[in-house]
C-alpha cells in the first residue's frame, strides 16, 4: 500500500515536471510567448526598437490641415463617423490648452494660441491603459507600439478611465452602419469593444509608413527613437519639442515641435 502510494506520487511529480518543461520549451520555440503559431513577418517589414513620432506644429497646425490626415487614418482603419459625445477617433485636432493641459498660459503667443495640434495615442513607454487592462487585450509590443486585440477586449472601458490623453474610443453601438466606404483590407470592429491608434502596425509590416505620416507631406516624422540616425532623433536633436502631460511619467512616444 505504502509502496504504491509513493510510486503514484512519483508518477504525478514527474508528469507535472514534464508538462512544465514541455511548456517552457514550447514557449521558447514560439519566440517568447503568445498563443498558437507565430507567423514570420514579411521581409520588407519596417522594424524598430521603439517606434516614435515627431509632429512639426509649425507646418501642421490647422483643423483644415489635420482633417485629411484623420480621414486617411479613419478610412484605412474603418473608424466609424459618429457624432459627439460618442465620437470615434484615432487622430484628431485639439487646441493648445486642450492638448497641453499642464502648460496653461494666460498670455500665450497669438500664433500658438490659434494653432491646432494633431492628437493620437502616445504609445507611452509606461502606459496606464496596459497596466489596468484585465485581459491583456491591450499590450505593449517589443517595438514600443501599444497594441489592441479587439477580439479579446471585453469592453470594460477601464483603459478609457486610465488613459490620460483621451486616446481611446468605445463602440457604443454597431460601427458598421457608420463606415461610409469600408476598407476590406482591415477588420471591422463589433459593438462593445475599445479601439485606438495602432501606429499602423499593419502598414509597418508591409513596409509602409503610417497613413497619417504618409499624408502629412513631411509635417509628421516617424521612426526609431532608439536609433541615433533615425529622422525622428535628428528632428528631436535639432528642435525644441514637448510631450503631453509629462509629469505623469507615462513617457509618450509622440513629440511636438513648437
Amino acid at each position, binding site marked *: 500500500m505504502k509502496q504504491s502510494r509513493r510510486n503514484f506520487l512519483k508518477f504525478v511529480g514527474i508528469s507535472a515536471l514534464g508538462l512544465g518543461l514541455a511548456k517552457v520549451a514550447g514557449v521558447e520555440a514560439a519566440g517568447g510567448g503568445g498563443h498558437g503559431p507565430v507567423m514570420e513577418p514579411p521581409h520588407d517589414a519596417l522594424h524598430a526598437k521603439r517606434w516614435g513620432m515627431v509632429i512639426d506644429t509649425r507646418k501642421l497646425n490647422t483643423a483644415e490641415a489635420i482633417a485629411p490626415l484623420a480621414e486617411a487614418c479613419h478610412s484605412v482603419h474603418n473608424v466609424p463617423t459618429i457624432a*459627439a*459625445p*460618442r*465620437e470615434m477617433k484615432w487622430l484628431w485636432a*485639439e487646441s493648445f*490648452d*486642450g*492638448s497641453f*493641459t499642464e502648460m*496653461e498660459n494666460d498670455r500665450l503667443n497669438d500664433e500658438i494660441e490659434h494653432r491646432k495640434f494633431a492628437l493620437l495615442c502616445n504609445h507611452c513607454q509606461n502606459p*496606464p491603459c496596459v*497596466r*489596468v*487592462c*484585465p*485581459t*491583456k*487585450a491591450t499590450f505593449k509590443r517589443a517595438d514600443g507600439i501599444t497594441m489592441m486585440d479587439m477580439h*479579446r*477586449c*471585453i*469592453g*470594460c*472601458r*477601464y483603459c*478609457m*478611465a*486610465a*488613459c*490620460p*490623453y*483621451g486616446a481611446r*474610443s*468605445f*463602440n*457604443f*453601438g*454597431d460601427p458598421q452602419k457608420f463606415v461610409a466606404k469600408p476598407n476590406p483590407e482591415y477588420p471591422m470592429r*463589433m*459593438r*462593445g*469593444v*475599445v479601439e485606438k491608434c495602432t501606429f499602423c502596425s499593419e502598414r509597418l509590416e508591409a513596409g509602409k509608413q503610417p497613413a497619417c505620416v504618409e499624408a502629412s507631406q513631411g509635417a509628421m516624422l516617424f521612426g526609431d527613437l532608439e536609433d541615433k540616425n533615425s529622422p525622428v532623433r535628428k528632428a528631436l536633436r535639432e528642435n525644441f519639442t514637448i510631450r503631453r*502631460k509629462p509629469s*505623469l*511619467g*507615462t513617457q509618450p512616444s509622440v513629440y511636438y515641435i513648437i
Partner: protein
Amino acid sequence: MLEKALQGSPKYWGWLAFLGLIIAAGGGVYMTQLQDGLQITGMNRDVSWGFYIAQFTYLVGVAASGVMVVLPYYFHHYKKYKKMVIMGEFMAIGAVVMCLGFIVVDIGQPQRMLNVMLHPTPNSILFWDMVVLNGYLFLNVIVGWMSLQSERTRIDPPKWLKYVIYTSIVWAFSIHTVTAFLYQGLPARHYWLTAILAARFLASAFCSGPAILLLVIMLVQKLTKFNPGEDAYKTLAKTITYAMCVNVFFFLLEVFTAAYSSIPGHMHSIAYLFVGSHGHTGMVPWMWSAAFMAILSLCLLIPPALRDNMKLLPWSLAILVAATWIDKGLGLLIGGFTPNMFEGVTEYWPTGKELMVSLAVYATGALVLTLLFKVATGIREETDNL
C-alpha cells in the same frame, strides 16, 4: 434549509412575484442593450463609466459593511448582535450578487467575460477586484449557511469555521480597499487620485451599509416576529453615527486640500460638482442636497435622545443613505470623469433604459436577500429563537 423559502404567506409570494416582474422587465431592456450595445445608456466617450459602475461601487460598500456586525460579535464577543449577525452575512451575499450583476451589465462584450480568468492579469486591479469579490461571496455563503445550520441542529459548527469567519472579517476590508484602488491608481483623474479614497470608501460604507441593514431589519421585524433586541439597534446606530462623522470629515479633508492649495486640477472636479463648470450645472442641486442631508442626518444621529428614538431612527437612517448614495452612487463617478482629458466638460445623465436595467439588478439582490432572510427567520421560528 432552502425549503423554508418555499413556504410563505400570500404576501410573501406576492412580493416575490413583484420582484420577478421587475427582473423580467429590466431583463427585457437588457436584451435590447445586448442587441444595440451600450448606446442605450447615457454614457459617452468622456464619461465612459456611469450609473452601473457607480452602483457597483456603492454596493461593494454595502457588502463590506456586514463586518460592522460580524466583527464585534466574533472579535469582541458582543453577544447582543447574536441575532443580527446572520442578517449582516446574508445582506453581504445579496450585495455581492448585485455588484457582480452591475459589472456584467456594464461590460460591452459580456460573452467574453471569462477572458478575465482565461488570461489572468495580476497588474490589473480589476482582476483583483474579481478575485476578492468572488472570494467574499464564497466566504459569506459558507459562514452564513453553516452558522444557520448549526443553529438548527443545535450542534456546534466545526472548529475551522472560526478561522473562515476571521478571514471573512479581514476580507471585508479588502473588497472595498481594492475597489477604491480601481479608481485611486489612475494617473490623470484628480478627483480619484488621492490616498484617502480607500479610507473614504470604507467610512462611507460603514455608515451607509449598516444603515440599510437596520432599515431592512426593521422591515423584517414588522413582517415577522424577528426581534434583534433594542440594544442591538442602539449599538449599531452608534457605529453608523461614528462612521458618518468620519465620512464627512474625510470629505472635508479633500475640500480643504483642493481649496487651500488652489491647484486647478484638484479643484476642478469639486467645483464642477458643487458650483458647475463651463455652464454645466447638472450635478449642483444633487450635491448640495447630499451635503444638506449629510449634515441633517448627523444632527439627528449625534444627540443620544434623538438617535435612541426608534420612531425617528428609520428616518435619520434613510436621510443618511440618500446622502451617501448621491455622494458615491452619482458624484464619485461623474466628478471623476469631469473635466475630461482636454479640460472640457461633457455631461452625463443615465437614460430610462439604463435605470430600468439597474432596477432589475437591484430587484435581483432584493430577491436573493428575501429568500435568505426567509430561510433565516424560518429556521429561527422553528428553533423558537426569533
